[in-house]
């Protein structure tokens, strides 16, 4: 597997130095934010395709309003000039139309005609200028594709559903997790009647076994220190364990006669959210990373599973069963502020974007299982995997270099 097919090279990078210039055009933390009017003008070969992809990225955030080039009223203008003499090269600039000054000018090039990676890079830059925050347009999502006869494959795609590729074809792959640096994928798979936890080094393309015992071994999440939390029934009953990415320092964290599964770390790695049916039904619990300080987070409903921790550590998204259907909920990590985000069909397996603005999930709302994105405010839900592909269990990557 080739990890880096395209190497983007910023040939020229000259930020016009403006002392104290940290103007933010959209404050995404304020409620009821008004979209920023922006103009994009593109010239040169393939420029229209790049512009389309850039607009697709920015549109998904709901924070931009595109103004026609001949119509006044935009606050920012982006000028792009594409050139395909050697590979693809785009010179673009972002200009503040109110203060009439150039904020950013940059040339991005690739040795091949790589429209989408270049467009995502430009969109990230525009987003950064407008919001002061890092965009997620160059992140990726891994997911499972049902290939029939009880087998599931691990696949990867760009955040917008393009550039879909298969990573692991063998056996029945299930839960999976990204390491915080994006280098490793850690996943559980059943092959030859054995459940093992594997790691895939995306740099070398090498797969190795991280943990194996009899029974079920199901990976949950990974901490910033590359500690892997997982559920194992090695001692007879699914309990939570941690191990480091090199397969050392195995620790057992829970001791109960109940099911304990799906452990995910808080973003700082200090706590673990997981599912336990110790109270009679599956509910979300939180404990410290050493297994102490256990507390229950969900109290409504009788089937709450698959927790995901938001990147700011404040909320946990999970799948809750209500009126016979599975839906995505969010709850504050202290158990307050429970809120339902989906209502059509069955919606499961939430995963946050690294900026916390989007949730990826799977849904059968259109009659087949597919991956969808939504904004954290439950607006704008969009399917990103094709109809013919039975896709589920998305895991959003961290920011990637």
């Amino acid at each position, binding site marked *: 597997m080739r990890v880096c097919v395209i190497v983007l090279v910023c040939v020229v990078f000259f930020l016009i130095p403006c002392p104290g210039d940290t103007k933010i055009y959209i404050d995404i933390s304020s409620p009821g934010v008004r979209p920023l009017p922006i103009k994009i003008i593109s010239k040169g070969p393939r420029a229209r395709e790049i512009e389309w992809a850039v607009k697709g990225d920015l549109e998904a955030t709901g924070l931009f309003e595109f103004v026609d080039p001949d119509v006044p009223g935009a606050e920012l203008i982006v000028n792009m000039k594409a050139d395909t003499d050697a590979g693809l090269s785009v010179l673009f600039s972002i200009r503040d139309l109110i203060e009439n000054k150039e904020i950013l000018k940059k040339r991005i090039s690739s040795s091949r005609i790589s429209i989408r990676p270049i467009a995502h890079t430009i969109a990230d830059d525009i987003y950064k200028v407008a919001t002061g925050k890092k965009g997620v347009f160059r992140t990726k999502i891994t997911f499972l594709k049902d290939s029939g006869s*009880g087998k*599931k494959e691990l696949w990867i795609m760009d955040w917008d559903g393009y550039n879909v590729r298969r990573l692991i074809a063998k056996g*029945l792959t*299930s*839960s999976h997790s990204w390491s915080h640096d994006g280098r490793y994928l850690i996943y559980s798979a*059943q092959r030859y*009647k054995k*459940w093992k936890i594997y790691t895939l080094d995306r740099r070398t393309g090498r797969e190795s076994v991280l943990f194996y015992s009899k*029974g*079920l071994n*199901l990976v949950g999440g990974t901490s910033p220190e590359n500690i892997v939390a997982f*559920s194992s*029934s090695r001692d*007879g*009953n*699914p309990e939570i364990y941690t191990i480091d990415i090199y397969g050392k320092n195995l620790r057992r964290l829970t001791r109960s006669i109940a*099911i*304990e*599964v*799906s452990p995910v770390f808080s973003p700082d790695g200090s706590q673990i959210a997981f*599912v336990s*049916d110790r109270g009679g*039904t*599956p509910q979300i619990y939180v404990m410290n990373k050493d297994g102490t300080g256990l507390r229950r987070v969900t109290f409504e409903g*009788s*089937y709450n*599973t*698959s927790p995901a921790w938001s990147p700011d550590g404040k909320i946990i998204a999970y*799948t809750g*069963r209500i009126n*016979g259907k*599975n839906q995505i909920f969010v709850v504050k990590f202290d158990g307050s502020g429970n809120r339902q985000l989906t209502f059509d069909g069955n919606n*499961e*397996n939430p995963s946050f974007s690294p900026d916390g603005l989007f949730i990826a999930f799977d849904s059968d709302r259109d009659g087949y299982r597919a991956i969808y994105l939504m904004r954290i405010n439950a607006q704008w839900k969009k399917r990103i995997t094709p109809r013919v592909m039975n896709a*589920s*269990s998305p895991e959003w990557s961290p920011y990637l270099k």
Partner: protein
Amino acid sequence: MKRYALIIALLLVVIVGACAKRYTRPPEKAEVPKEEVIKEEVIKPETEEVKEEEIAYAREEEVTEKEIPIEEIAKDVLRDIHFDFDKYNIRPDARPILDEIADFLIKHPDINIVIEGHCDERGTNEYNLALGDRRAKAAKDYLVSKGVSPSRILTITYGEERPLCRESNEECWQKNRRDHFVLMK
């Protein structure tokens, strides 16, 4: 004429003899006595060999005679047991089936089994894998409590990943919430 006929007859005999000699080389008449001596020695091992073959054949037959019924019996005995939604306790209706399986395993100590734990589609995938693990273990624990050695039972969970029935109704879901028993090869 008679002489000629005799000569021809003799010639034919010689030719035939020569031919016969050429084509039936091993039983050379000159060696017959030797062969007979050897034969006497050979007969014993030959008969022994034959006996051995017969024994082997008989043994093989015995094995196949046994094997066919065992798989057939297994088919009748190793029936699926079913569970309630989100539960892994052994239901009363599953106990007679498990008792029969325990008897069968105790009667045939050379047989090992795999218990597959399965769930319906309504739960979430990861939790269902854990639930299937517990369902398989529940049946294993029951069989062990009836005197079956735990080393003869392997458990595996498939969660909701290998449904028997693909419709979305309670009848179908009940079929899928099962432990399935398989003879280990």
